[in-house]
């Protein structure tokens, strides 16, 4: 029994980057999970789907889907110690495609996410003198974004969008080039406390506005009949799923940077509840503000409630102009969007950088410069023009509803179904974690998750096939919706066919490094086998029975 890699394989020469400890990882994971969706999506989804009664399906979805999927991603990344393609390659040579699909989804999301952060930077500045005047909608579409009526791509660049976007890419390049500890983790260790403080002050101010109670009343008054509507439950599962950054490689990548001995499930619970904790806070802040706006305009909360870009860049500017301390509210609100957006963007791009590093064996700066450089050029070309908004809207819808849901569905089906590896996942989690998972967990990820994800995925696809999307022309959707969505799958298959060279991290990264200390014997790889990154994942009692 040898403790070295296969006799023919060269000796590993690299060690994997690592977080300094579990709290650095937890903050980075929270930084990833807490993003724009927490602030501008959750409040409206809750309001639309039963108000106060939504708490029940929401919590059930968190416990039965969000946290189990978080554990699933952690287990794959931690046990197989690689970026999404490498981790899935070590799981089975047939599953590498899933990892590349997740990487390509991150490429698509990364290039448009930077645009929204760029807008938020400008709106933080516009808040000071309320540049939008009396008509924020006309200002956004006309003066600021200069949206063209025809969505076909144009090369009319908008300087007010181009320069802040360029700044976003340069800052991201500098942060990510410094690596996992001094870049990725540090950004969240600074960003998350800053975000929490800014948002708490914002909520504090919003709660004192006249009409705030009216807004909270609208958000939290329970509509119990909604619980009988399956659509409300799907909305709860969808919100939890999209909000937690699960299913598209981020948590796999982050978990691969963890020390071999890390309490995975204990950390996952903190991340899951922190994300939801921030969503509740965002709901209180946003609806207090909307209550004020409704009262100031003499209309009902229902008439001012909204989500997404409309909420952030049209409704909020309106209330900033009306509210006392409006400029401060604006700076805090858009500043929060910028910080939450940056920590999420960094996590999205880390999936890509990590995959490129692993497959090609490149160094951190080389991979960062190439990935961010190329993404930045595409991002600026597509989204700093007069047709950026329509393209962003389309790519966002397809990347999320087709890409993320589809890739997550495929990964749970393959791992728990085709490969029958659910026991490997639970055994690994239990080998290193304090919060144990058992058969109930396997049922959740092996049965409930595929059903829920398949329903969300197929119903969205059928709806878009039947009705189109937002009235955009068919050829536009064919290229920027279906084209990119299906092209990503095809490209993922091609990328997984490229063999792993001897320089790649499949062979060149040392799984037995000193960092893992006392776990070294567990990484033993018998003669004549390739290193799979497999750990001893079976507890003593189970092992005796199995063997």
């Amino acid at each position: 029994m040898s403790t070295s890699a296969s006799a023919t394989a060269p000796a590993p020469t690299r060690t994997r980057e690592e977080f300094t400890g579990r709290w650095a990882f937890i903050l980075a994971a929270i930084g990833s999970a807490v993003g724009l969706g927490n602030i501008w999506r959750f409040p409206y989804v809750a309001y639309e789907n039963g108000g106060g009664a939504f708490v029940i399906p929401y919590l059930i979805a968190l416990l039965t889907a969000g946290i189990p999927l978080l554990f699933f991603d952690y287990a794959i990344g931690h046990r197989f110690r690689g970026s999404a393609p490498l981790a899935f390659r070590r799981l089975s040579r047939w599953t590498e495609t899933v990892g590349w699909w997740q990487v390509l989804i991150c490429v698509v999301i990364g290039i448009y996410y930077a645009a929204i952060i760029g807008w938020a930077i400008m709106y933080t500045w516009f808040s000071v003198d309320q540049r939008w005047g009396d008509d924020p909608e006309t200002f956004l579409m006309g003066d600021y974004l200069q949206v063209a009526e025809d969505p076909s791509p144009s090369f009319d660049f908008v300087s007010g969008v181009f320069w802040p976007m360029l700044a976003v890419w340069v800052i991201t390049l500098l942060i990510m080039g410094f690596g996992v500890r001094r870049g990725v983790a540090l950004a969240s260790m600074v960003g998350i406390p800053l975000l929490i403080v800014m948002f708490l002050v914002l909520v504090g101010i919003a709660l004192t506005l006249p009409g705030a109670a009216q807004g909270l009343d609208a958000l939290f008054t329970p509509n119990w009949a909604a619980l009988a509507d399956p659509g409300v439950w799907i909305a709860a599962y969808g919100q939890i799923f999209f909000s937690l950054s699960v299913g598209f490689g981020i948590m796999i990548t982050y978990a691969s940077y963890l020390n071999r001995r890390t309490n995975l499930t204990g950390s996952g619970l903190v991340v899951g509840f922190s994300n939801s904790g921030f969503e509740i806070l965002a709901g209180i802040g946003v609806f207090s503000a909307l209550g004020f706006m409704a009262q100031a305009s003499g209309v009902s909360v229902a008439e001012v409630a909204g989500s997404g870009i409309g909420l952030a860049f049209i409704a909020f500017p309106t209330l900033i102009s009306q509210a006392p301390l409006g400029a401060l509210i604006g700076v805090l609100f858009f500043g929060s969007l910028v910080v939450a957006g940056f920590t999420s963007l960094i996590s999205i791009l880390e999936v890509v950088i990590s995959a490129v590093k692993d497959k090609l064996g490149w160094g951190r700066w080389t991979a960062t410069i190439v990935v961010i450089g190329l993404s930045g050029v595409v991002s600026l070309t597509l989204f700093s023009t007069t047709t950026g908004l329509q393209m962003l809207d389309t790519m966002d819808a397809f990347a999320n509803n087709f890409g993320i849901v589809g890739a997550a569905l495929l990964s749970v089906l393959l791992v728990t179904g085709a490969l029958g590896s659910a026991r490997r996942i639970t055994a690994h989690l239990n080998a290193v974690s304090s919060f144990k998972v058992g058969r109930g967990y396997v049922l959740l990820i092996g049965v409930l998750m595929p059903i829920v994800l398949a329903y969300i995925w197929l119903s969205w696809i059928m709806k878009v096939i039947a009705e189109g999307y937002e009235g955009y022309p068919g050829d536009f959707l064919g290229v920027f919706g279906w084209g990119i969505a299906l092209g990503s799958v095809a490209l993922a298959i091609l990328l997984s066919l490229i063999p792993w060279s001897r320089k790649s991290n499949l062979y060149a990264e040392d799984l037995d490094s000193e960092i893992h200390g006392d776990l070294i014997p567990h990484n033993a790889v018998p003669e004549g086998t390739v290193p799979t990154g497999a750990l001893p994942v079976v507890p003593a009692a189970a092992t005796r029975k199995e063997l």
Partner: protein
Amino acid sequence: MSTAAIVMMSLAILLVWGGLAVSAVHLLRHPDDSSGDLAIEDELAPVVWEREDGRLDARHR
């Protein structure tokens, strides 16, 4: 605010932030080294790995 809205808001805060507090305390009480079936104290646990053919192999330390 109506009573029902106040109750549901309090419940949401209590359950989610309470869940966060409980999970944070749980994590603090379970350091990485001593967590899980392969905690450092468990010297008797066999070393187990998976061969390429998918079967498990094991030996005692």
